């Protein structure tokens, strides 16, 4: 069922060390990129593979690289977004811990493609083991001549620096991440200019997610067509011909595999890599289904920012397009299965509390609306409801929606609205009885 590409070798002992990684063909893609391909060819290969960003937005990676003006006289940067903080998401952590060298190799190829001599990994501060593994990997790569001056005897000089975040979810937003990296208060920047035009220190910058970059060595080594051989690619995109047709990596094009973080009250929750387009039910099966006595009520298919969808979507193939059509999103690939013993009000409160706590405070609707929303839902969850509270929740939600500076604020209404839509009777019961029909006493923490 699982198709290990990004996670290839994760179960091989010692794969996190450079020796084992190289024994299994590691860093050959880098060698190929440096000696047999021009930077433009690398970028084209990635573009035609249809690789899309794995951080949440799903933007075409090759297109992002193409935006970089290689002829610009100022330095170019590759910034790696390893600030994985979306509730329910833990796949980048798994990748960094188990296949760190694939990540490093991907970063080096990206630097070569966009003409960057410096890459920064912005790592979520709490991920101590990832830090250790990455630092070791960087050091090993440096000793092996894969990092530093004249990589593998080419004229390519590159260095990677690892920066630990200090614990703010907003730093996962790429422009806030750049501000934080520059030593400022992390708040999202106005776009345009996009990072590709003026990113880190005002220079052209590519910001990519860990999983995205871990795909890159495979694409370079095996080619775009190989990459598109699994998953749910748009058949109208002809990677072999490389001309005409719809753009690669957009709309219905979801090629390759995806590393999913699967959680909930499951028998076997964890990280699974499956081809794009795998039905959600299959992922449910891999995760061993819900624990005994529990029934599936809803699914958060793409991290906490993605609206919940009902069990009628149980068979939905997991692609960017299908989930968008279902009114949600594939997002960060965090699938949270919600059971019938989880109070939807508590769940909404849990997520709203998170967003309220993590709001950067820049824009009004997120800063004030998040707080207001939390206070009202908290009352509802704790049996202090007032008449009209549901209307109030909808009012606040409408006030926030479509008015925030960045996606963080826009995520506040998502779990609330979908919970209200899927479980109206449950909310109504809270309002009318001041208690929960399930009788769940503790918060049902996600993830």
């Amino acid at each position, binding site marked *: 069922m699982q198709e290990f590409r990004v996670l290839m070798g994760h179960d091989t002992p010692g794969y996190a060390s450079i020796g084992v990684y190289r024994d299994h063909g590691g860093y050959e893609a880098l060698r190929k990129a440096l000696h047999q391909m021009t930077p433009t060819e690398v970028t084209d290969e990635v573009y035609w593979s249809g690789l899309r960003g794995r951080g949440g937005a799903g933007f075409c990676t090759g297109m992002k690289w193409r935006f970089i003006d290689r002829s610009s006289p100022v330095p170019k940067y590759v910034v790696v977004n390893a600030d994985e903080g979306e509730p329910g998401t833990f796949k980048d952590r798994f990748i960094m811990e188990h296949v760190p060298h694939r990540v490093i190799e991907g970063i080096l190829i990206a630097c070569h493609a966009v003409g960057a001599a410096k890459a920064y990994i912005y790592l979520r501060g709490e991920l101590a083991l990832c830090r250790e593994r990455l630092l070791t990997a960087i050091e090993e790569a440096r000793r092996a001549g894969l990092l530093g001056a004249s990589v593998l005897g080419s004229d390519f000089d590159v260095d990677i620096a690892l920066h630990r975040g200090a614990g703010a979810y907003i730093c996962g937003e790429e422009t806030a991440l750049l501000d934080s990296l520059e030593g400022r208060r992390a708040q999202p920047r106005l776009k345009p200019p996009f990072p590709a035009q003026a990113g880190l220190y005002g220079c052209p910058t590519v910001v990519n997610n860990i999983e995205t970059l871990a795909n890159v060595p495979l694409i370079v080594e095996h080619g775009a067509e190989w990459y598109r051989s699994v998953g749910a690619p748009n058949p109208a995109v002809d990677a072999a011909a490389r001309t005409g047709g719809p753009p690669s990596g957009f709309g219905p094009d979801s090629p390759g595999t995806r590393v999913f973080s699967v959680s909930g009250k499951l028998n076997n929750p964890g990280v699974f890599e499956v081809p794009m387009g795998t039905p959600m039910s299959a992922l449910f099966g891999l995760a061993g289904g819900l624990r005994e006595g529990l029934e599936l009520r809803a699914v958060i298919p793409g991290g906490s920012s993605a609206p919940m969808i009902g069990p009628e979507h149980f068979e939905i193939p997991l692609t960017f397009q299908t989930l968008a059509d279902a009114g949600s999103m594939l997002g960060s690939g965090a699938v949270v299965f919600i059971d019938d013993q989880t109070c939807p009000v508590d769940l909404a409160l849990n997520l709203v509390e998170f967003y309220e706590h993590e709001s950067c405070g820049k824009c009004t609707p997120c800063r004030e609306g998040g707080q207001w929303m939390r206070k*009202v839902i908290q009352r509802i969850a704790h049996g202090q409801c007032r008449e009209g509270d549901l209307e109030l929740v909808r009012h606040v939600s409408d006030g926030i929606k479509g*008015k925030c500076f960045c996606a963080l604020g826009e995520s506040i209404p998502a779990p609330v609205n979908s919970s209200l839509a899927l479980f109206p009777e449950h909310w109504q019961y809270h309002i009318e009885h001041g208690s929960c029909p399930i009788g769940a006493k503790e918060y049902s923490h996600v993830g």
Partner: protein
Amino acid sequence: MSANSMVKLTIDGQELTVPKGTRVMPAADSIGIHIPRFCYHGSLSVLGACRVCLVQAFNPVIDRATGEPVKDDETGEPVYREMPTLQTSCTLECTEGMKIVTDSEKVLQGRANIIEFILANHPLNCPICDKGGECELQEMTMLCGPGRQLFTESRLNQDKARRIGASIVLDQERCIVCYRCTRFLSEWASEQVFEFHERGGHSVIEPALKEPIGKARFAGNTIDLCPVGALTSEYFRFSARPWELADTPGVCPHCAVGCSLTLGGRLGTLCRVQPRTNYYVNDNWICDRGRYDYAWVQDDRLVAPEVDGVRVPWETAVERTVSALADIESIAAVVDPATPCETGFLLQRFMSDGLKASSIYVEDDFDLAGPFPGTIMDLMYSDPVILVSANILEDQPILWLRLNRRALEGKLSMVAIGAPDWAPDLKRLATDHADLQPGQAVAFLNGMADLVASADASTLTRVSTETGIPAEWLRGLVERISAAKRPALIVGALPTGEYAPARSALDRLTRSLQADRKMPVKAGILVGGANSRGLRLVGCSPRADARGSGETRPWRQALLAGDLNALIVVGGDPLCDASPELVEAVRGLSSLVYLGTNRNATSELATVKLASASFAEEPFTFVNFEGRLQQSIPTNEPIECTMPGLRVVGRLCAALGLWHGELTADAVRRSMAETAETLRPWAAPIGEQGEMIAS
């Protein structure tokens, strides 16, 4: 501007054309459509944080294949597509064919939502808030708020009424997190006074430094910028409601920049001084000195004329002044450089036509230095701007502020050159700086003139040895200047004997810099007070052979040598640090007439004290260092028995038959215009931004 750098759009049905890159908010402003705003401020960077300026935006649908707008099959009208969400007009760039709607139901609902959010944690105790009556949140709530409050949860409690240094009071609960204050401080002032701490709903401004902000030069502007009552002025707080103030346009008397002010007076008290927008001079700002240094308008005033320490009616005072001076030879007038043009004009008439052998000295070095040959705009659009012993950060703060803004934008570099212990803050904030051996300013100017002509090694070595500046640094500076389109150079105050050689060195340097440059190179000495230039225009100058600066000013010499019989002091306090010998010489005069506002060392020595109105109480004109004529309109009546300076001197003139008719500012200005061609501008209306009358 060429056609393709302009875009055409419609806002609420009104069509307009704006330069590409213009954002919707200023475009709407330009046609008189006011979109509500909190974080937006025309002089600050665009932020897009408050979200209150939401509008609906529609873009024409473009056919990808042809690049042409899609037209409706039936009507032939272009087809529009609405952007998926409401857009913030402060961040949205105008594009060709765009349609903006600022007043639809959807927009009004969105705005009301935002205001409701802002009000959620904002205290609703406007009656006890100092900002009440001029609070932007209050106005916006009335204008486009939801009209009712659904928020009934508990509010956040934060610090109230915290003193930040001596002048600013911070109420954290009232802050609506618009970042205007922090943006001003970082984008203009390079002063880290506040910063935001915490995040989300707990975001709060805090003093950035542990040390008090007493040293801040521009932080007072954050009080005006604050749209709510979070930052208020310690001096103004609760002294008046804004609607009780008689706001009038004024001009700052503190330095040669002459910032445009709004004077807020009430019942004879000057309650506050604020900047008045003037993009040619001070943008939207004033320095803290200009803002807070007005206590003297109320305290320790001369409130009525006095003769020999006894209050007398004005008739007696005028009579005594005229009779004391009329038949005396060798009289000198010492004039403060912040004396208005009208007073100076009449004084000059009184002295030259009414008294025997008299001369006028203005207490500045302007006669030696000459006028500065450029405007603030000229300097802003120069690069690099070289400051030679010119501490504009202290002496002309707003000039520095405007140049610093350009420097922070990377459009200008400021290079500060002066003695090692001189102006550490200016040097720290400048783009580049060098330590000059004390007393070597002229050598530096001459050296630069030589180096611009030829930067060979021997010249470099010589200039480096003379000035103490490393040869490499000098070479870099010369290269930078030579490559520059429009360099500028400002020299500050110098010792008396150095002005003449400095001017000839500057002439030489300007000539060689000008060479084949199209734009005129601005290089000169910048000295003097608020009206130094105006006083010269109206004729207040000593003879050419009687010029000096500081302690060597000739009136002091003449006084000590016993060559003066009487002295008229107009404004200021020139005897405040006088030596015992000088005080003795003053006591030996037949009379000392003091025309001024306050009691001070000079007024205490005066035999006749003529109590004049303050700058907030009299109409007057100043000419700033650029040659910009500006007028000030009083916010208060002269207190007690004081009179505007022009009326006092006018009555002295009238007593000698040198003035007939009414004594108003207008009458004096008409008389000025009739007297000399150069004074004609005084008879014409003076615009809000002033009039350039000399260059």
